[in-house]
């Protein structure tokens, strides 16, 4: 901040001061644009809220809902929303499932599983996708040929069949699902990074870096990667939604997160059996709405991020 005392200083000092007040960086500019996008901000807010619920699932269930997610009590099965055992006991705000477990508590813990899995998957996707895409784009030749062909092959298999096949063969624990999901979703990022690398590696500044003696690793990670990161971040964000949908679908089919660990997907597949029972409506409707809201929030945020990071793409 320029005070009156600083302004009255000599001219060279004023120039130095101006140099200190740098023009806003990419992240700062992007944030300014992102902030103005109301839908994107709403999406981010919803995600933040869901994230907080997921992180603090245990204290919330201890103090607010006062139920444990896996505690069974068959005496109180399939109770409607707002049920109380006695006037003084805690309320089952969304009722109970067939084993008498509190639905709201299980939903909160389900958020923990689904969101954490999605985050882990996207991080893995980014790692595999960026490295393979960078190698293919930077080195070209047979490295590119092998990686690109492999991507073509994986894209030709109906992803969901492949997921079913892999989960059946490996029977992964719930964190292993992240590896499985990442193994069928890294191709988009890889193609994107490859394209960016192909475009950037012929730029003059890359040649300049090579002339001053930078090795391949340095050129890839220090010079090209930072310049190709924006579209990758956008693609990765938009992929979170797809990952959540795939995970919940797998869990719904009984191949993903295994009960008693609650996941929005396996809660739905359990609930479907009671589709005819009026008091079990919340059991079927709410997990789906939560999946929908989460995916919608991620997508809105991703769209906002895209517009913010690359204004040229905005239609």
């Amino acid at each position: 901040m320029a005070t009156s005392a600083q302004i009255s200083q000599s001219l060279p000092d004023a120039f130095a001061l101006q140099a200190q007040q740098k023009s806003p960086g990419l992240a700062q500019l992007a944030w300014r644009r992102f902030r103005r996008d109301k839908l994107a901000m709403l999406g981010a807010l919803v995600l933040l809220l869901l994230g907080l619920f997921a992180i603090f699932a245990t204290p919330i269930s201890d103090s607010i809902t006062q139920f444990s997610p896996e505690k069974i009590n068959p005496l109180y099965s399939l109770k409607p929303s707002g049920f109380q055992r006695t006037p003084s006991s805690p309320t089952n705000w969304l009722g109970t499932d067939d084993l008498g477990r509190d639905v709201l508590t299980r939903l909160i813990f389900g958020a923990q599983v689904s969101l954490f899995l999605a985050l882990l998957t996207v991080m893995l996707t980014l790692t595999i996708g960026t490295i393979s895409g960078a190698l293919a784009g930077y080195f070209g030749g047979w490295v590119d040929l092998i990686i690109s062909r492999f991507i073509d092959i994986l894209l030709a298999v109906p992803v969901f069949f492949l997921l079913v096949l892999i989960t059946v063969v490996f029977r992964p624990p719930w964190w292993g699902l992240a590896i499985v999901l990442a193994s069928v979703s890294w191709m988009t990022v890889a193609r994107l990074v490859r394209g960016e690398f192909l475009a950037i590696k012929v730029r003059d500044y890359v040649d300049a870096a090579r002339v001053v003696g930078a090795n391949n690793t340095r050129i890839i990670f220090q010079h090209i990667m930072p310049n190709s990161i924006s579209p990758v971040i956008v693609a990765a964000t938009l992929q979170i939604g797809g990952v959540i949908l795939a995970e919940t679908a797998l869990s719904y089919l009984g191949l993903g997160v295994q009960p008693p660990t609650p996941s929005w997907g396996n809660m739905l597949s359990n609930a479907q059996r009671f589709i005819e029972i009026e008091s079990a409506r919340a059991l079927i409707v709410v997990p789906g709405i939560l999946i929908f809201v989460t995916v919608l929030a991620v997508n809105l945020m991703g769209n906002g991020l895209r517009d913010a990071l690359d204004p040229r793409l905005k239609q």
Partner: protein
Amino acid sequence: MGKYLIRRLIQSIPTFLGVTFIVFALINLVPGGPGSDLLLADPNIKPEDMERIRHSLGLDKPWYERYALYMGDLAHGDLGTSLIQRGVKVSEMITERLPKTLLLTGSALLLALLIAVPLGVMSAVKQYSIFDNLATMFSTAGVAIPSFWLSIMMILFFSVSLRWFPSGGVQTLGKDFDVGDVIWHLAMPAVALAFISIASWNRYIRASMLEVIRQDFIRTARAKGLRERFVIFKHALRNALIPFATLLGLSLPGLIGGALIIERIFSWPGIGRLAFDAAQQRDYPVIMGVVMMSSMLVILGNLAADIAYGFLDPRIKQS
């Protein structure tokens, strides 16, 4: 055109070989594959009997030999026999189920096209109108709805509450085959499967149309005094659909994969349901057969999309 076709056909061969290899490797090279499962089956089997079984099943041969054998059989249309339903050929199981999956995915594809194309065109023609904004909202929300939940909700409303549509199956049990009856059963699964495609495709059509509408030949067509409807549907839409042909090919894996879930929810006896049941029972030859078959469908679909692209865009033929 002939050369282009042949080149694309040849290009798809290594892709198919790659798919078969990956699927084969997944099942055969990892722990928990068919060999070890047999060992787990019965602890009372004597080791020498075990060897005999492994030999009779060809499991004592090295993997590359088994892969070659499998590919040789595949070339003859032989996908082996089911482990669970002893003696039943996998190829027979698939040919029995495939028409039902094709019926389901085909209707969903048609339905999605019939809704998404007019929706996208209207959105583009009336850009930023209320209609366009509503369509945008529908698309944004539509791609976020999990298809299995949508299916359950449809069953809840249209089968359980209103009792308008059956909740599953291909036709009413005990009734003779009747086209109307099948369509009645097909309605809900087809809509559920088409839904996500409608939501995403209409965006692509809109973007593609917007690009075409701004071009000179559209202005020329209008300047000639052609009726607006003619300009939009004949001149503009034709060109806007060209890039869409590729997208259509690319959405096939999703559509066929989506059929797996939809078939399970609506008890539709197609190959998706077959794959799922086989997966539950660890019936490896059947899973392998279905994945090979569906991958082949996808590759053929992409090929067809490329050929359509060649026909729609004369510039491709010349190159």
